[in-house]
């Protein structure tokens, strides 16, 4: 079923709202909404769940206009950040809750609950006696997932489902949730503030900021071809430099892993307030001071500075501190027009 939002707006207190969102979710795919806190991603999710009315716009599930439909009639079930499993019910009762409301026969309910829990890999022999809080965090989130999936919803909504878990469990559950979503072939919307999570799990990534969509597209697209300054800055280990290109002030966004270092004895010459960036054979380059390396596992991370603006360089080789020529391939250098002044320089 195709899920479409058309010019959806919701003002929510002072700023935490959504503004004129038009979006259609790919069928059977996982769409990730990513953005900093307060960007409106959760508001959008909750609007789709039907937890609050929207001010204007329409929402369609297939042919059906659900803009004013109550939450329970939408067939959009939700997985919460804190799992929201009911502590006074057994795991079986938790998962069966929605089915019981639909007046299904007892045997049918048993069947469905066992099936869905098996698919999310929760052992089913003791689910009628165990309470959710007796399971680990990762298992609880899978139970919550089962509770949402057992109703065979049109849309599965997930609100930062992994952010309460520790790093190891999180990275494993990412893969598991993705696999479960694909095996059910369900259209899913996944809200997260973690860009890595969004990139690794989603078929389609939506970057939001201040209640608006900054950029939407395939993960590779939004990562390698950022359309706006914010999208460029938000993804990856990005750094923004205020520089001069052909004498014109520009903002250059770099990713640490794309920067190559070449030893260079000539110290940077101070012609102007901002560093000048030169172009040659598909590479942009400038002089930078490289500090002591920091071993981060797969690479070394260097703190680099160019005329007071700092950034990181990730490289596999070990370099002694000194002046280097930092070079970035042209297709990995993201340029944005800038009218920067004395103050914007301090903000970098």
């Amino acid at each position, binding site marked *: 079923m195709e899920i479409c939002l058309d010019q959806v707006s919701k003002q929510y207190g002072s700023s935490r709202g959504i503004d004129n969102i038009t979006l259609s979710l790919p069928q059977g795919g996982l769409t990730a909404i990513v953005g900093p806190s307060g960007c409106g991603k959760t508001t959008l999710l909750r609007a789709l*769940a*039907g*937890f609050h009315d929207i001010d204007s716009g329409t929402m369609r599930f297939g042919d059906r206009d659900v803009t004013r439909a109550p*939450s*329970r009639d939408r067939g*959009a*079930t*939700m997985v*919460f*950040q*804190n799992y*929201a*499993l*009911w*502590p*006074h019910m057994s795991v079986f009762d938790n998962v069966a*809750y*929605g089915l019981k*409301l*639909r007046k299904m026969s007892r045997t049918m309910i048993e069947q469905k609950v066992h099936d869905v829990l098996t698919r999310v890999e929760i052992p089913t022999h003791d689910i009628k006696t165990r309470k959710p809080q007796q399971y680990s965090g990762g298992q609880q989130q899978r139970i919550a997932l089962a*509770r*949402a999936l057992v*109703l065979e919803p049109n849309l599965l909504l997930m609100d930062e489902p992994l952010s309460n878990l520790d790093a190891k469990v999180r990275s494993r559950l990412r893969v598991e949730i993705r696999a479960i979503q694909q095996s059910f072939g369900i259209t899913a919307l996944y809200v997260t503030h973690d860009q890595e999570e969004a990139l690794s799990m989603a078929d389609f990534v939506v970057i939001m900021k201040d209640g608006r969509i900054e950029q939407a597209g395939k993960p590779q697209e939004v990562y390698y071809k950022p359309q706006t300054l914010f999208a460029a800055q938000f993804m990856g280990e990005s750094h923004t430099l205020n520089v001069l290109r052909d004498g014109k002030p520009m903002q250059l966004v770099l990713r640490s892993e794309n920067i190559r270092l070449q030893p260079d004895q000539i110290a940077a010459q101070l012609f102007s307030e901002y560093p000048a960036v030169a172009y040659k054979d598909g590479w942009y380059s400038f002089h930078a001071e490289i500090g002591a390396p920091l071993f981060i596992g797969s690479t070394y991370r260097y703190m680099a500075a160019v005329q007071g603006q700092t950034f990181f360089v990730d490289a596999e080789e070990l370099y002694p501190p000194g002046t280097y020529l930092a070079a970035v391939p042209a297709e990995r250098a993201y340029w944005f027009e800038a009218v920067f002044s004395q103050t914007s320089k301090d903000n970098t």
Partner: protein
Amino acid sequence: MSAGVELNRPSSPSGGFGGNIGRLAVRLVIYAFSIFVILGPLSSLILWSFAEKWFWPNTLPQEWGLQYWSRVLEGKMAEALTVSFGIALLVTVLCIVLCVPLAYMIARYRIPAKPVLLLIFLLPQAFPQLPVFTNAMELMYRWDLVGTLTGVTLIHLVGALVFSVWTMVSVFQSISVSLEEAAVNLGASRIRTFFTVTLPIAVPGIIASSLLVFLYSLDEFTGSLLIGSPFITTMPVYMYNSAMGYEMQTASVTGLLLMIPGIILLLLMQRFMKSEYMAAFGRG
């Protein structure tokens, strides 16, 4: 981590032994002190309750006996006991019926003057009880409620509602909204959500709050004396009357009897009480 613990274990017995004795001694002193502080004042009550003759300057009663216990247990005392428990039960039930919906609404919905509303509930507790109850008595006279069960129940409710509302609001606030949203999202109505999700989760807190209300009503004195007498005599009033008549024995027996439900209920409450529910208490 567990490996580290294993490694530490062999070295500990020799070094830890002296430390253990020291710790034990400190603990014993603390226990002894608390027992003295708690039971010290009570011991005189216990002594008095078994004394048939005890005059100054004797350290211990001259004659011991169970006479006062038996007298107290058969006579008017039993009646006072029944009245007290009856009122306490009634007050508790009324509190639950009134406060559960009220507290839920205060906890969940945006109510215009919410702080003012909560303050109104706190007001009778903020002022000294005597003037509040004296004023209430004047009203009660006008409505012919003085000396009636209804009157005493109402005056108990004034204080009990404060405990009840404040604790129950924090009980409901401690229940995550997402638990309810999950139910609504899966197809339950608001009412159904309340009865299948919110209320069952709140039950331990409601029980704890009700036990407090019950104890409050059982021990309430000022209001009971002003509104109830001379026709309605609750246990605390009965105790007061006996003590005023210098019947130390009767007062002691009553005092000891009044402690029993308190101790039992507090032990019960410990099972249900979560520390966060206590947060709302001003006094108690």
